[in-house]
């Protein structure tokens, strides 16, 4: 193909190296012992998609229960467990590993022109840790469940029944998987860029993943120790977080959010990273403001460490602390705004193609706009006192976590699907699914802003009759959303059953992962590419871009 790099082999094992990674070794064992980043990425993908399904089922159950003001399908105790499991699964088992461990694992080395990540065996190890963590979490669900909410606030979490200890241990284990992924990616980006590729020759996706990986490395250890302290509190009653024993429950919140606020950016930065790839590709135009977008990722990562207190405006922390945290929180809006404006300007006068990945990217811009702006409402102390722990908060973080991160993840999944599996999916079906997801999402969560601003508290099992219409609207939205995902699962699985038909570069992109075959050969490139131009040189003809 004209798009692939000239096929001169750098080593003697030409036959072995020519096989695509999906067919290089057969059977379960060749997958479970692989150290190929592409196969590990695919194994992660199946893992997180299963967890997304599980968390989604819990979400549908929550919405179904809220169809009526009193009991609909489950008891209050079950409801508490269901929303806890929905949150814990979605955060720790789906969103955090979704883009970095599954998609970036696959495309990052390709984008850098590398043969693999820095530490391939560690990469496989992190997948096993993820699976072990997932099994422990499932064990916690079936042996009593957890009703604390995904935040495990003390002293409730140290006194309630159920498998809290097992669940926190699962999250502790999952943290190590996240740390190893982060260490691997930072080392990969520092040391494995193709010859001639400077920091500013990397695709912006790599900048986003680099910032994410830094947070994973620096924040996750604090979560690990927090959860360990929580475990000790439960088993030995040490008393650090228990006011009855002289401890301080707000200290737990500080510890927890010191990780979990940066973790919000572990979730959103990779989503932004994907958008920075999709928009130039489908506009066939050089990205506007490369350095501004690159540095804004790093800026978000840095600011993320000093805003955790905005989760605690009503916790009793000092008013001065609240004022300072509120002030710093507004700074997050600046790099986020820089990115958004640059993406929009990139499309200006481009030849925009509305393929499924681009539709997701456009949905992202809208939904992230709403999610980001409502975040500023909540960052203002006086407004937050009114809105704290209401559905407004629920709607806000779903607009950021689902409306932005998950939508971007789906965009990335559709964007790289041909590269990962060598098959094109049914494009019209993909557009229908994207429209349903967009409509369903907004029907589900827009009413929740109104519910929250009128005083509907989050996590409540019963509600006042005047809230019923908006709750029902939200529930109907969840069904539309479910239908969209059902169609998506249908055409994606259907595409896997047909013959490989994807060209090397179906979207005419200029980044390196598209300059090798779809699916790529085991060692990614026949020869290590040397870099002459930038990743978004759309003024050059296809195939004359990167390799000098």
């Amino acid at each position: 193909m004209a798009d692939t790099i000239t096929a001169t082999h750098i080593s003697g094992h030409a036959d072995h190296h020519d096989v695509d990674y999906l067919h290089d070794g057969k059977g379960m064992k060749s997958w479970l012992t692989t150290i190929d980043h592409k196969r590990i990425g695919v194994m992660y993908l199946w893992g997180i998609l299963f967890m997304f399904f599980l968390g989604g089922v819990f979400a549908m159950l929550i919405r179904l229960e809220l169809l009526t003001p009193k009991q609909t399908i489950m008891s209050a105790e079950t409801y508490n467990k269901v929303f806890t499991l929905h949150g814990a699964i979605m955060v720790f088992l789906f969103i955090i590993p979704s883009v970095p461990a599954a998609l970036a694992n696959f495309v990052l080395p390709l984008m850098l022109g590398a043969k693999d990540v820095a530490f391939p065996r560690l990469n496989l190890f992190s997948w096993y840790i993820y699976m072990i963590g997932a099994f422990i979490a499932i064990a916690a669900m079936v042996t009593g469940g957890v009703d604390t909410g995904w935040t495990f606030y003390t002293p409730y979490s140290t006194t309630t029944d159920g498998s809290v200890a097992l669940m926190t241990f699962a999250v502790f284990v999952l943290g190590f998987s996240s740390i190893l992924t982060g260490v691997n990616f930072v080392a990969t980006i520092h040391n494995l860029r193709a010859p001639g590729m400077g920091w500013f020759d990397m695709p912006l996706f790599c900048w986003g993943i680099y910032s994410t990986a830094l947070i994973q490395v620096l924040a996750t250890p604090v979560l690990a120790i927090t959860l360990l302290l929580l475990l000790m509190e439960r088993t030995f009653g040490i008393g650090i977080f228990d006011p009855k024993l002289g401890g301080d429950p707000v200290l737990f919140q500080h510890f927890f959010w010191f990780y979990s606020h940066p973790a919000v950016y572990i979730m959103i930065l990779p989503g932004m990273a994907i958008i920075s790839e999709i928009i130039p590709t489908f506009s066939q135009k050089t990205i506007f403001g490369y350095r501004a977008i690159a540095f804004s990722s790093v800026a978000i990562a840095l600011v993320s460490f000093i805003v955790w207190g905005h989760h605690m405006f009503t916790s009793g922390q000092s008013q001065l602390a609240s004022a300072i945290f509120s002030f710093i929180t507004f700074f997050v809006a600046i790099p986020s705004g820089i990115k958004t404006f640059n993406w929009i300007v990139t499309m200006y006068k481009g030849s925009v193609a509305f393929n499924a990945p681009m539709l997701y990217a456009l949905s992202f811009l809208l939904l992230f706009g709403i999610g980001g702006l409502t975040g500023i409402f909540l960052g203002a102390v006086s407004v937050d006192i009114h809105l704290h722990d209401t559905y407004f908060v629920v709607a806000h973080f779903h607009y950021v976590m689902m409306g932005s991160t998950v939508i971007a993840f789906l965009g990335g999944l559709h964007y790289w699907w041909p590269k990962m599996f060598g098959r094109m999916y049914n494009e019209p079906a993909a557009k229908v699914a994207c429209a349903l997801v967009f409509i369903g999402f907004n029907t589900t969560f827009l009413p929740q802003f109104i519910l929250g601003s009128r005083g509907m508290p989050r996590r409540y099992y019963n509600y006042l009759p005047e809230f019923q219409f908006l709750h029902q609207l939200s529930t109907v939205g969840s069904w539309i959303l479910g239908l969209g995902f059902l169609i998506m699962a249908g055409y994606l699985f259907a595409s896997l059953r047909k013959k490989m038909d994807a060209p090397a570069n179906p979207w005419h992109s200029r980044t390196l992962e598209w300059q090798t075959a779809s699916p790529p050969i085991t060692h990614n490139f026949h020869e290590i590419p040397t870099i002459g131009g930038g990743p978004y040189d759309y003024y050059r003809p296809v195939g004359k871009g990167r390799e000098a």
Partner: protein
Amino acid sequence: MSSHSPEVAEHRYRQHHFVTAGQQLDTSKTGMWLFLATEILMFGGLFVGYGLMQGVYPEAWVAGHHHLDRVLGAVNTVFLLCSSFSMVMAVHYASTDQKSKTVLNLGITLAFAFAFLVIKYIEYSHKFHEGLLPGRYFRLAEVGGPPQQAMFFGFYFMMTGIHGFHVLIGIILIAWLMVRANRGDFSSAYFTPVDLIGLYWHLVDLIWIYLFPLLYLIS
């Protein structure tokens, strides 16, 4: 002298996805330093919790720390410092192709690490015997003094326990290094594992150097 020439060693240990051995070494070091950063942050969380609670209950902290044996703590500090020195020497000899001295110094490091754990064991069994246990198992009636000593000992056991766990991991790694050094795996061309595990061991030592005054030398 090692039986391998630098070229052979480079060919043997360079993984397929690195272009040069130097790139592989740099990458390994980046990874190790990042890992050490995670360790510092993890212990950092404990230090912050410990310091905050010490500010709230200073009298319980002082009373609690009187039950710790300063002499044994000091001896352990010396042991770890000596083990760090022998580790440095092991790295030096590995990088200068002196196999038997590498093995010897790794052995000395291992011996000090064991001695550290033996003393820790003695300290722990004294504490168990006297009822100085964490949290709700703390036998206040026997010990007397402020009740928040239970929290102090919660921190004591967690901090020294997690540190002790790191020592244990270190012992396993150093033993593995000894086997490999003895086999002649390391030479001036390739001694990355000795170098990196050396870094790890120094961090374990460094954390103890903070733990010792924090826990044993409060007043």
